[in-house]
C-alpha cells in the first residue's frame, strides 16, 4: 500500500528560555499592549532607532526559565553595541 503524506505544518524543537522584542520608547500603545500580553521592560537601548530614538527591550519568560533569571530588569540603559545579538 502506498501512503502519500503531504506536510501541512512543520514545527521545530526550539525550546527557548524567553521571547524578546524591541519597541520605540514613544510607542506607548504598543508598550501597553505588550505589557498586557505579559512582557516586562527589561532594559532601555539608547539610540537604537537610527540614533534618534531609544528602544525598550521587552521580555517574557517561557516555561523553561522556571527561576526567571533571564528577565530580571536592568536598571542601567545600554548602548546598541552592547547588545548580545
Amino acid at each position: 500500500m502506498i501512503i502519500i503524506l503531504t506536510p501541512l505544518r512543520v514545527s521545530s524543537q526550539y525550546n527557548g528560555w524567553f521571547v524578546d522584542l524591541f519597541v520605540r520608547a514613544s510607542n506607548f500603545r504598543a508598550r501597553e499592549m505588550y505589557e498586557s500580553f505579559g512582557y516586562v521592560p527589561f532594559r532601555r537601548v539608547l539610540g537604537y532607532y537610527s540614533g534618534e530614538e531609544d528602544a525598550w527591550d521587552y521580555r517574557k519568560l517561557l516555561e523553561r526559565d522556571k527561576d526567571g533569571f533571564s528577565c530580571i530588569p536592568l536598571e542601567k540603559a545600554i548602548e546598541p553595541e552592547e547588545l548580545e545579538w
Partner: protein
Amino acid sequence: MTSLQRFRLSDLLTFNSVNLDPLTETYNIGFYLEYYTRWPEYFTSTVSHDNRVQGYVMGKSEGVDNGTVQSGPNKGSSYGLWHGHVTCLTVQPMYRRLGIARQLMDSLETVSQETVSTVTVVSRSCKKSIVVINPLSIYLIAQ
C-alpha cells in the same frame, strides 16, 4: 473569520495595506526571504474570510543554549540565552481591536517553547496526522 497561516512569499505582493502604516518597517525583499527560509515557523500571518492579509508576525530564534554568554562584553551573563525574538508585528488599521496581534504573539510564543519536533501531515485518505520526529525514529502519534 480570521485564519492563522504560515506566511507565503506571495503575501509580499499583497501586504501593502498592512505595511503602509507609518510604524511598520518595510524591509528589503532579501530580509523577508531570510526569515522565510530560516525560521518559517516564526513567520505567520492572519487572513480574512476573503483571503486578505490582515497582519503578520515575523521572528527568529537566537542566543546560546549553555547557560551563559561565552564571549564578548556580556560574557557570563544570562541575557543572551537561547530565545525567540519578534522582529516585526503589525496589523492593518481596519482589522485592529480584534485581538489579532495577541493571536500572532501566542503563535510565536508557542513555537519558541516547542520541545518536540512535529510534522502535521495529510495522508491520501485526507486524515490529518501528527508525526513526531525524534533522533532515533519517526512515528505516528495521532490520526
